[in-house]
Structures are given as C-alpha cells and as structure tokens.
C-alpha cells in the first residue's frame, strides 16, 4: 500500500481525508502529524466556544474513533523537524516516516504587529483552541480586554470576551470595522450594535506599544492615550504558515505555490488550505478550502479535477449581529448602486451592479436574501428584468405565499381525509403518534390513501403538520426501484433523446436493473409504442397477462371472450355466431355487459384461438375488453328511433369506435354518445362523453365511474359530426402522448389542467398534428389481434403437456 503523510490536522486536510477514505479506504496507509495535541475540529466555531454558547466537544469533527476506523496513525503534538525530499521522508521529533505522497496543510499563523511589549504574558493571538482556552481562563478574572484588529476574528473575540464578563475595547487601524467585507454604512451599523453590547470601538487607532510590568497592563495608542488591559488579543490578520515548505526548498511566494491539482513544485508533495497560494490568491474562508480538499483527494486517486477560485460570502458569528457580504463592492467606473435603508430597524442593503449583472452585495440587519443574492453573483445572472425590485429579494419577484398547511391544521379530527376507505384525520394522526411516520406506514396501518390515491397529498400534509420537518415530503416518485426518474421525466427523455427501444431506455436513462421489472416494463413499452409507433414494436412480454392473451383471465383460470359490437349495434348473424360459439365451446355463462357487448365467460385457454376464428368468420373482431386501450363506445338509439334524439348518436358512436379501436392508451378508455341531454348512454361518466344537442355536440372529458365517480368536464362544443370525431381523436392522442401510464384521463387532466388541454385542442395546427400522429399509430395498431393470433400463434395457447392422457395410458 502507498504511504501518505499529512502535516497538519485542520479543516482542509480533514476534508481531504474524508473524501479519500470514503472513495477508497485502502488506497493509502496514512500518517497524520499535528502540532496541536488534538485532531480536526471546526475552527470557525471557536468564537461560540469562547463566548460559552458552544463547547469544544460540540465542534470536534474527527474524534479518535474516526481516525481509528480509518487506520490513520495519529502523531499529535509532535513537531516536524524537516522534510527530506531525496529520500521522501518526513522527519518527526519522534522519528522519520517515509512517504509516497505528502500533504502540507500547515494552515496559517497569526500576524503579530511588531510593537514593544508584544511578547508580554497576557498578550494572546486568536487562532486555535489553546488560544481560546487561554482567553476563557483570562476572562474568568474579569477586568479589561483590548482586542487589536476589527476584522471578523477580532470582533468575534471581542463579543465572546464581553459575554464572559470582560469590559472590551476594539482598536482598529482603519476608518470602519471589517473594511474588507463591509462598506462604511454597514460598518457603522455594526459598530452601533457592538457598542450596544457594551463593547467600545476605536477606529483609526494605531497601537504604539503594549505596556506592563512583567505582564500586559495597558495598550498605548498613537496620541499617547492608554487603554487599561488585563488581556490583549492580537487579531490583525493571518499569513500562510510556509516555513516547512521553504526549508524543504519548495516554491513559495506569499504562500506555498500550487497548481490547480494542489500540487507543489515537487510532484509528490501537495499543499492545501490556508498555507497555499494559487494563481496569486490566498485563502482564509472555509468554502474554497473544501473545494481544494475535494480536488486534492481526486488527485491522490489519479482522478481528473481542477481547483477554480470562486466568490465567497462572509458572515459574522456574533449573536444578534446579522451581516452578509459577497462579491466586489468597491466603487468603480460603470458601477451602479442600489441601496435600501430602514433606519428604524437598523437595516442597510446595498447591491452593486455592473452592466446587467450583480457583482456585489452588502447587507446589515436583514440577511434573509443573502444566499439568493450570492447565487446571482456566482451564476452571473442577468438581472435587467428585475432591476427595479431586485433589492426586495426573491419573495418580491415571485409574490408572497400564504401558509399552505393552515387549512389542513384547521381540519377537525373527524374530518374525512380518505373517501375510499372512510378514514378521518384523527385516525391518521393517531397512527402517526403510534409510529406510522411515512405514507407507506399510514397506508399499511389505516388504509388511508391506499385505494385510489387521490388523497395522497392530503395525507402527506397531515404528516407534515403532525411531524414537522421530521417528515420529508417525498420528491416526485420514480417509476420504480429500477430507476431514479419519474414517469414524466422518462416520457420527456424518450421523446427528446429519441429513445426507440427498451434497450435504449435501460442504457441511456441509467436503469439499475438489466431489463426492468414488472412495474416499469409495461409503462416503458407503452411510452415507446405511443411515441415511436413505426420504429418500436410492441413487446407482448411487457404486458399484463390479459393483454398477452387478448382475453380477461377469470378467477378459475378460464377466460372471457367479448367480441366487438360497434356502437353497441349487432344483428341476427352475429348473435347466431355468438350462440353457436357458446354451444360449441361449452361456455357456461353468457352475459350482457354495461358497455353494450356480450361476454362469453368460462372459455378454456386452449379454445381461445378456435373460438376467435369462429367469431372472425362471422365478421367479428376483438372487443379489447382486456386492454389499456379503447374499450367500448356506448350509445343510445338517437334520431333513428328515439322521439327525443337530436343527432345520429349511434352512427357517431360507430364511427368513433371504428377510428379508435385497437389503439393503446395509458389506461382503459371508455366513450359514450347520447342522442340528447336525457343522456341514456350515460356519457357524463366516460373518458370522452358526447351529448348531442340541436346545435351540435357537447364534448365532455375526464369522467369515470369506478373507484372514483367523476363527472365529465366540458372540453368544447362543436357543430358537426366530423369535428366531434376530430376533437375526440385529438384528445385521445394528447392523452397518449402525455399521461403517466395507468393514469385514467381524469387523473391526467387533474394534473395538467383542463385549460391546458382545451388550449391544445383548440389550436388548429396542434389538433391536426395530433390527428395525424394518431392515424400514423393506427396504421400499425388498428387490426384485430384475434385474427393474427388465431392464424399464426395458436400453438402458444395449447397446454404444455396433456397429463390426463398420459395418466390414462
């Protein structure tokens, strides 16, 4: 195994080890040196530890168990004597360690201003846990503290020491606090907030000396003012810690120079974190260090990656001070400011715009939109369209939202949530209290949402109201466990990537199984044949048994046979043929169906091809009573016989059935045509239901009379029979092209909205396209599967072996 030596157990190298050991735990034998006597902890959380708002234990990132689990040999508290690049050895105080690859992650050292008294006891820099503990100890005696440096670190130290009960003065060289991150206005508000916390601030103040007899007692400023100080904290800045690298002869400028793979001038030595210089940049905030860590881990595993410098945002961890700054907010030619101030609330926001892009943002008092602005800066979003309202943030762009859950919260316990199973809210909340904390568990324990599923959203909202953020609202459901994509995504990708075979879908859409499962195969088969009717051939092996056998299997294993009767019209020859077939094949039950057909129930599987052939001879074809496709077109007698009939409803029904039969759809499709509003054909609960009136045809869609009873919604009214046929075909094709497999039309329309459907159907070009697409598909599928199977595939309907005969012999 290759040997990796890491010098420095800070946040950057810690992240490298995480990535490395997660990706390949056996890639390297790791030795980790650290000057501190402890491993990696979250250094940026030292301020709350100083203030007492957190404990050290809370900010430990890697404890000894973590290192042990990864076989990292920890040599903490051991100084490095040197690096011998010739022999590729790191010389530790307690002995040498050879390396194949070496990481230098020595971080940074505090900058100590060279004034008299800087080495007195009582003068502390602020960099690590030891410094923090020294400050906590010093603060226990109370007294006065002077913090030199009004940057991020100095102010956090000042706030912490104040909370610990010290009287604190901040001495800052510049005109306003945090001048690198804030402009004057924000700096002013920050100063005001700190002064309200009892912290004194001196800006434009230069430290001349730290004075005291044997230990720090006061800070002497330019102008001879002295500030009493039992504790002096030096927080004026940091510089990369490069001594080891320099001694080893690596190229060092302000920091250790690295390339985009974090490699130093020696190809076996890498550097990461605050000690490096890349492309002239030094790094002090955590986000780029984590980016570097990822790149370095990849480099160690010979994977390609490159570090790029990105903008970073700054936040101050002082309780009660909300500030945010990102990007570049210096004044300059071609730059414009948008400023918002609310003096009463102590709010200041400034956006800096260059051209049509946001380049900088400073906020004080209200930082809620900081992340959004940061995103605009990073992504270089064009902001022209929202310039007027930009400063008010994203909520203003999209409008305000009400509390969507309040209505659910207000439901009483006895309010019914699941209509199918009669489950009320109280039953569901009781089940949640008893441990059913997700949708599947609610379904299993209460049956709520387990039938038609229309109440799923409501049940999920009850879960949200009851469990809070413990309940994670599932994002869109994938088709099945074979993939991560939703039905909608799969449909979109089949079209856009022109996927025309199952293999193409499995491969290009990253299926996790070899060729799908019983859940996804029927759906994918349908999507492919609906989108690519000519190129894709229907796969019977991806169909349910009823569709494979072209007959509905009954509970005793026999089948039902339903010949098609166009529009519910039949004649004596057909009836004789049905009667003869019933006799010939000993059909025990002959039933008239709700869809105006005759059902022969109890036909043996092996008799199917023969009975089909007999019915074919009488001119009858499959009624598709088993398919996810057009089932029946139910009609009344219309103007031919009825006194009230307004149009030829039977004739229209027959024509519709002759156009639509044989087509595959996401779920079954039933039609009805009634000759007048008395609606004898019950058209108002069909997928497409047409009511004839004197002026023409009222076309309703998305009805159902199953688990859910849904009345049709009016799609449109048309004047002529041909238009009625065109609209129906276009609607069915739109459903075929867009719906999720096994969504009835009412579920699909509820998802896409009737308005959307109406718009598409009303557009003449789109309607023509839909009709043409449907016709193309029907050129393949408008044929009788019975005839085809009776002639060519009769053998597959025979039993595999006749065991009764064998036993008799």
């Amino acid at each position, binding site marked *: 195994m290759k040997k990796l030596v890491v010098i420095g157990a800070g946040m950057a190298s810690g992240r490298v080890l995480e990535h490395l050991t997660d990706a390949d735990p056996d890639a390297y034998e790791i030795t980790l040196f650290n000057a501190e006597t402890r491993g990696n902890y979250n250094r940026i959380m030292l301020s709350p530890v100083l*203030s*007492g*708002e*957190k*404990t050290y234990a*809370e*900010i430990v990132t890697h404890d000894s168990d973590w290192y042990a689990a990864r076989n990292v040999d920890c040599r903490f508290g051991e100084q490095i004597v040197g690096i011998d690049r010739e022999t590729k050895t790191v010389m530790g105080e307690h002995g040498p360690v050879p390396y194949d690859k070496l990481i230098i992650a020595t971080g940074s050292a505090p900058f100590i201003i060279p004034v008299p008294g800087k080495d007195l006891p009582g003068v502390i820099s602020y960099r690590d846990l030891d410094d923090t503990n020294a400050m*906590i100890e010093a*603060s*226990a*005696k*109370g007294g006065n503290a002077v913090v030199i440096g009004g940057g991020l670190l100095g102010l956090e130290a000042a706030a912490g020491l*104040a*909370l*610990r*009960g*010290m*009287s604190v003065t901040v001495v800052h060289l510049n005109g306003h606090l945090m001048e690198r991150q804030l402009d004057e206005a924000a700096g002013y508000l920050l100063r005001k907030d700190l002064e*309200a*916390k*009892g*912290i004194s601030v001196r800006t434009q103040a230069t430290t001349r000396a730290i004075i005291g007899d044997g230990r720090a007692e006061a800070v002497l400023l330019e102008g001879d003012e002295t500030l009493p100080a039992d504790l002096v904290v030096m927080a004026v800045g940091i510089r990369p810690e490069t001594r080891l690298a320099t001694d080893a002869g690596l190229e060092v400028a302000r920091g250790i120079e690295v390339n985009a793979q974090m490699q130093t001038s020696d190809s076996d030595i890498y550097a990461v974190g605050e000690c490096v210089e890349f492309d002239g940049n030094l790094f002090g905030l*955590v*986000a780029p260090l*984590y980016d570097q860590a990822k790149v370095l881990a990849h480099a160690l595993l010979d994977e390609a990656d490159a570090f790029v410098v990105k903008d970073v945002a700054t*936040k101050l961890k002082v*309780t*009660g*001070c*909300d500030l945010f700054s990102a990007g570049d907010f210096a004044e300059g030619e071609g730059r414009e400011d948008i400023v918002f101030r609310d003096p009463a*609330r102590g*709010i200041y926001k400034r956006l800096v715009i260059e051209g049509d892009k946001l380049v900088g943002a400073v906020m004080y*008092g*209200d*930082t*809620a*939109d900081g992340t959004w602005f940061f995103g605009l800066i990073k992504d270089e979003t064009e902001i022209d369209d929202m310039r007027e309202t930009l400063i008010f*943030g*994203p*909520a203003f762009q999209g409008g*305000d*939202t009400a*509390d*969507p*859950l*309040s209505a*659910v*919260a207000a439901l009483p316990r006895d309010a019914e949530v699941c209509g199918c199973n009669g489950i009320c809210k109280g039953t569901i*909340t009781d089940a*949640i*209290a008893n*441990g059913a904390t997700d949708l599947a568990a609610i379904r299993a324990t209460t049956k709520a949402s387990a039938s038609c599923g229309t109440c799923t959203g409501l049940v999920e909202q009850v879960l*949200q*109201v*009851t*469990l*809070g*953020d*413990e*309940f994670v609202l599932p994002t869109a459901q994938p088709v099945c466990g074979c993939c991560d994509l939703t039905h909608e995504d799969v449909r979109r990708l089949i079209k856009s990537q022109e996927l025309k075979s199952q293999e193409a879908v499995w491969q290009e859409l990253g299926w996790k199984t070899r060729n799908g499962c019983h859940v996804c195969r029927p759906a994918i088969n349908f999507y492919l044949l609906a989108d690519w009717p000519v190129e894709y051939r229907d796969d019977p092996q991806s169909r349910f048994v009823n569709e494979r056998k072209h007959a509905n299997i009954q509970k005793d294993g026999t089948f039902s046979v339903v010949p098609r009767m166009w529009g519910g019209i039949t004649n004596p020859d057909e009836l004789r043929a049905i009667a003869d077939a019933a006799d010939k094949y000993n059909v025990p039950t002959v039933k008239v169906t709700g869809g105006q057909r005759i059902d022969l129930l109890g036909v043996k599987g092996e008799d199917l091809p023969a009975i089909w052939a007999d019915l074919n001879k009488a001119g009858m074809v499959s009624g598709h009573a088993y398919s996810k496709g057009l089932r029946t077109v139910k009609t009344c007698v219309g103007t031919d016989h009825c006194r009230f009939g307004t149009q030829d409803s039977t004739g229209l029904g027959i024509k519709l059935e002759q156009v639509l039969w044989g087509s595959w759809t996401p779920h079954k499709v039933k039609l009805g045509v009634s000759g007048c509003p008395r609606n004898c054909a019950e058209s108002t609960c069909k997928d497409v239901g047409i009511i004839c009136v004197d002026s023409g045809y009222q076309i309703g869609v998305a009805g159902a009379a199953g688990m859910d009873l849904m009345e049709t919604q009016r799609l449109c009214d048309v004047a002529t029979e041909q238009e009625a046929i065109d609209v129906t075909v276009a609607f069915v094709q739109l459903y075929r092209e867009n719906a999720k497999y096994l969504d009835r039309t009412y579920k699909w329309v509820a998802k896409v909205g009737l308005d959307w459907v109406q718009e598409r159907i009303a557009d003449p070009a789109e309607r023509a396209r839909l009709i043409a697409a449907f016709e193309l598909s029907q050129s393949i599928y408008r044929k009788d599967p019975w005839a085809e199977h009776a002639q060519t595939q009769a053998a597959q309907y025979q039993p595999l072996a006749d065991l009764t005969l064998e036993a008799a012999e």
Partner: protein
Amino acid sequence: METLIDTETRTFIQVTEYWVPEDGKLKLAGGNYGDLEGFASASGQTSFEKGEGLPGRAWAEARPVVFKSLTAPEFLRADAAKAAGLTSAVAVPLFDGETLKSVLVVLCSDSEERIGAIESWRADDGLLMLDDGYYGAARHFEFVSQHTHFPTGQGLPGGVFAAMTPILMRDLGASYAFVRAESAGRAGLTTGLGLPIPVPTGAPYVLTLLSARGTPIARRFEIWDARDAKVGKANEAELIDGICARDGPLWTAEGDPPRRVAAWQGLIGRVLGTGLPVVEKGAAGIPGGYDSMVAVPIHSKGELSHIVAWYS
C-alpha cells in the same frame, strides 16, 4: 423500532400550562400536568381576571411574576396545589406589542434535591438587575444572584438583552460570567437558556432558565429564528442553536443546509401559525426519546421573532 424514552424521573418543573385572554379573562389553553390530575382538573375549572391570581398578576403588571409559596388568596388554586405537592410558580406574560398573547406558567415543588433556577432580570440604567427568581434548593446561588448585576452585553442576561435574541449557554459552571460561575458550578447548574420578554412599557425583561444535571429543566433545548431578517417573507423558522442530551449539538455547520419549518409544520410550525405556546405530552412530532415539550414564541418589533423550545 420505537425509540426508548429515558425521561428523567425528577425534573425541576412539575407542571407547565398556558393561559390565553378570552372575553377579558385568562382561560386555560393547554398544559402538561404529568400525573397531577387533581390539579389539572382544578385548573380547567379556573379563569383569571386581569390582576387576579398568578397569571392575572403577570398580565396586569406586565412582567414575569414569581410565587415562592402557593397560598390563598393570592394563588387561587391553593388547595389543589397543596394536594399535588406544588409549592412555587412562575408566570411569564407573552406580549405582542400592546396585546397580551398568553401567559406561560410553570409550577415546581420544593425539595432538597431539586436544583435549578428560573430568573427574571430587568434593565435599569444599562445594568441588568435580578427582578425575582425561583431557585429550588440552590440557595447559595440564589443569594449570589440577588447581589449580582450584569452590564449590557455581559453574562447570559446581559448578552440576551443586548442581542434581543434567545441565547443558549452550554457550560454554565465555567462560563456563566465570572461573578456567578463558581457558585453555579457548585450548584451543579450546567445549561442556561436566556430569552427576552418584551413588555408594552419599558425595556424588555430577560428570563433565564438554568438547568442542573440531576433535576434538569429539560434535556433538549432549541432556539428557532423566525424574523423576516433571517427567513424573509416566508412564514418559516430556522433552527439556529440547540443542544440535546441524546443527539448532541443541533446547530448546522457552515455550508450544510439549515433546518427550517414552515407555519403549521409540526409543533414548532404550530407556534408559528398560532403565535401561541405549545405545551404537549406524548404528542406525535416530539423528537425521539422525549415525552413532552414546551415551545414559547417571542414577539418582538411587530413580528414573531423567535421560538424557544425545551423537551423532557
């Protein structure tokens, strides 16, 4: 698998309840009485005029009120309290500007083992002085506290006052300001939660709950920030700090997605939605391992600014 609930048997607070104004009177809106059914039933039958009883006084005086003995006529439910063994109580009025939203009342029973502190601090010329407090058996700490004051920005009370933000202190023995640290450590007080209590007139009070290991006020504390300045216009709250005896620190590190809830989403969401406290026992939505929770809204500068919650 169900999570085992390892609730401490001895807690510092026996009863938590909250009262809301309705038709000019305070009426009981919720509470956790544990097994003190008699006291629960007496409470359900009581209401308070402004100025009447403990909650009524907190309303009238617009400040937290401490009763170190529960005797009539000041304490209306004296008989029921005596029967339940309750001896002390603190009432905290929760105002939204001029309007009283609710009065939170906690009741305790004295015994030598019960250590903890519920204190109310008032600001007086830039200094926070103890207004009143209940300390159980922590008498030395009580004495020290009575003779302590905090400048703005210093110690837990001064820090809360200066930041107008609830603050959670982890290790009181070492960090609760040098003056009281030694005594706090000796009394076994570990965790401190301080919250601002804005009132219609004058400066806000600061309420501090100091919890000891043996008889904790709670074993999980959370602070949620709901200010527009933090979460924008969405009626949501973000968890900004918390500590849990089971899960450890609850804050999210820089770069990790913050934990947020929307109004009505769970129990914290209910506080956001109603603007009222939530006091629940055995309810769904209470984190695993805990049996009861108290969540208190703080209304400041015209908005629900923070929610503090504690669980046991």
